[in-house]
């Protein structure tokens, strides 16, 4: 457990909670990243203002590492997946979140905060599958 970081992880979580709260209280929107991204791929019959807030939110995400670096060196992500694995994983994440209407943010944070049964079932489904696939990947294959 030498990598155990409950305090920084909790603080990071609080910030995610603050962001989610800003979006629902000021904008009336759900901070579900997969949904926000997927909606940017819709080009037909989109209402006025469909793109603006989504693009701004994504822009904030994209710039966050640069802002972080102003204060502290950016922790380098350790990515062990091969290019092929990244492609397969990306396809699964894109297809799966669209089919299941959400990801870790939409179901895991927003949905559980709203006490949504649908999101609880979704969160259990992706967590359980994540545990199983991780076991297979690291200890079986």
């Amino acid at each position, binding site marked *: 457990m030498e990598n155990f970081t*409950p305090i*920084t*992880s909790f*603080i*990071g*979580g*609080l910030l*995610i*909670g*603050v*962001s*989610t709260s*800003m979006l*629902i209280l*000021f904008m*009336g929107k*759900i901070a579900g*990243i*997969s949904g926000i*991204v*997927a909606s940017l791929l819709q080009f037909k019959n989109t209402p006025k203002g469909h793109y*603006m807030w989504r693009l*701004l*939110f994504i822009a*904030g*995400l*994209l*710039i*966050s*590492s640069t*802002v972080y670096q102003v204060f502290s060196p950016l*922790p380098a992500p*350790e*990515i*062990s*997946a091969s290019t092929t*694995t990244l492609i397969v*994983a*990306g*396809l699964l*994440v*894109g297809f*799966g979140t669209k*089919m*299941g209407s959400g990801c*870790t943010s939409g179901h*895991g*944070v*927003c949905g*559980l*905060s*709203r006490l*949504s049964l*649908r999101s609880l*079932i*979704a969160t259990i489904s*992706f967590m*359980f*599958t994540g545990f199983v*696939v991780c076991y297979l990947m690291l200890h079986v294959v």
Partner: protein
Amino acid sequence: MKNIITFSAGLIFGLGLIISGMTNPSKVIGFLDLAGKWDPSLAFVMLGAIAVAFFAFRKAESKGTTIFDETIHLPAKTHITKELIIGSMLFGAGWALAGFCPGPAIVALGAGYLQALIFVIAMLAGMAAHEYLYKK
């Protein structure tokens, strides 16, 4: 004003992901690896986020409108469908394979990591594929 709030929300979300460790795929995989040297840190991310957001959603739902007196858009679906479960399972599999979920992948893309770019392009393709197969 609203544009500044939305952009700031994205920025704060991204900073939260970086500080929490969610943007490090090996940390995500360490969290999912129950049988290995399990690192439960990321459970604290969800705890922290829900500890704040729970109250925001209660406030939003009791008030019914935003601070600017505008409509709140909450998901209307309530049924547990096979799409919900199968889709979430597919997502969970992809999440474990690469250690990326959508938010952290976009943050890592912003930091200029080629692997994140590959993942995000594949993710967009996966979303587009679903849109194409299940055209309404």
